[in-house]
């Protein structure tokens, strides 16, 4: 039983990580929490659906289309909900992205709300359960988990080894110093939103066959991803990954050993306990602050 539960927890953790690292990426570069991250994911999922299911384009095209659409959406989001308020207080920033979240949800409902209650996205691989010894897996869950790991590795490398990644980190670290060395901070912020949203695009195209698509999917995904990010320290990609896997495991094990009524609350109880003892999260560099 433990092995099954742990495996399920890891798979779910991969989903949470895909959402969480987008939040962390934007936070690291801009100091803002993008409350619309889940809704960007929703839009991306529907874009992929339109390309793949409605227009019968190959999956890879749909994935890239969702990534591209979200990149543009991220640029727009930065223009509308972040740049005008970059120097405003944190509350205004939060409200702006919350507002964006509602706008996107409304948009999703109007454009895709009439296609079905929960749209199913065809699995990328034949979905007959496969056995590895005693362990039973659905191929689609393997694809999502593998895809999540790949995406996370790519983004970690991006941050560490590209000059844009380093500029984002520098801007997050010290916005004033970043300007003084000649980094165009506005542009970095816009790109951070765009890249963070593009990540949501990739995530959505990966997870849609598992989560199904509906206009209200954004918030529940956001809250789990955000929890993973906070748990991990909010500014640490490895921490977020760790936090996401931890939440997935806690939920699954609590559901299995305590009772299925504890799935949703268990993770948050543990997070609260951890944050009480260690306010900076598992791997965070500092207590939560406005960068």
């Amino acid at each position, binding site marked *: 039983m433990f092995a099954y539960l742990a495996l399920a927890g890891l798979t779910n953790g991969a989903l949470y990580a895909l959402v969480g690292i987008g939040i962390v990426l934007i936070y690291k570069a801009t100091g803002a929490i993008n409350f619309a991250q889940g809704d960007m994911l929703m839009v991306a999922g529907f874009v992929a659906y339109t390309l793949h299911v409605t227009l019968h384009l190959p999956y890879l095209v749909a994935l890239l289309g969702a990534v591209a659409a979200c990149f543009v959406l991220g640029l727009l989001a930065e223009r509308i909900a972040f740049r005008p308020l970059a120097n405003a207080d944190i509350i205004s920033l939060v409200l702006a992205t919350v507002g964006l979240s509602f706008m996107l949800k409304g948009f999703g409902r109007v454009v895709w709300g009439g296609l079905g209650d929960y749209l199913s996205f065809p699995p990328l691989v034949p979905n007959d359960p496969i056995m590895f010894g005693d362990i039973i897996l659905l191929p689609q869950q393997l694809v999502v988990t593998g895809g999540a790991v790949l995406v996370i590795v790519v983004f970690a490398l991006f941050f560490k080894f590209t*000059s844009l990644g380093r500029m984002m*980190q*520098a801007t997050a670290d010290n916005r004033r110093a970043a*300007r*003084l060395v000649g980094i165009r901070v506005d542009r970095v912020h816009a790109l951070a939103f765009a890249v963070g949203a593009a990540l949501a695009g990739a995530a959505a195209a990966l997870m849609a066959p598992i989560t199904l698509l509906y206009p209200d999917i954004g918030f529940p995904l956001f809250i789990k991803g955000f929890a993973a990010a906070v748990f991990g320290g909010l500014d640490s990609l490895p921490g977020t990954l760790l936090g996401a896997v931890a939440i997935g495991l806690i939920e699954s094990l609590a559901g299995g050993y305590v009772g299925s009524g504890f799935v949703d609350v268990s993770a948050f109880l543990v997070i609260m306990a951890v944050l009480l003892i260690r306010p900076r999260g598992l791997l965070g560099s500092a207590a939560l602050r406005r960068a």
Partner: protein
Amino acid sequence: MLDVQGLEVSYGATRVLEGVSFSVLEGRIVALLGGNGSGKSTVLNTLSGLLRPQKGVILLSGRNVAGRPTHEIVRGGMAQVPQGREVFASMTVAENLDLGATTRHDKAEVGRDREDVFALFPRLRERFRRRAGSLSGGEQQMVAIGRALMSHPRILLMDEPSVGLSPAVVGDMIEAIRMLHARGLTVLLVEQNVGVAAAVAHEAKVLQGGRIAYSGPAAGLLDNEEVLRSYLG
């Protein structure tokens, strides 16, 4: 090298600079002095493009850069070492230095320039894989200076480099500024510490009430009781 004429800057309704004019000749070390709130940092931030002046001209090598964005000014050859050693704390010394070269096109040269910085501050070579935030105050100041040098400036703006450093480290800092000068750099040094300014600068300007109230040689500053009393408290 740098020619500032009639600079006026306000924060909202409060005018901080009311027509500041001065020039820094090539190869000179000029100290800009003044009490708290006299507008010294405002001058530097306006020169660096962090603030937009309402009026005035900033000629950098003959080109007016007033109100231009920071990255253009850095590329034009004027870099700032900010006050309080604002390094990228979570990044390594090497990454900090490389970020200093953001505006340059000749990225191939960056490795060699890093070597130059290490020649100037050998301590950084030993620490170049360390996170900048974990270094001592003096070492962080070196990182901040080295980072500014990576942009190939011809004039370096230094905002109170001695603040928060122990007297021994301040001595090292004065030595470093002399070395930079010896390598042909022009320096505009904002200081509150008259001792540091007198020790290193050729000329001194004293800012008071949003204007330049005194301009003269820096060497005699400590003996000039009138300047000390009336402007610097």
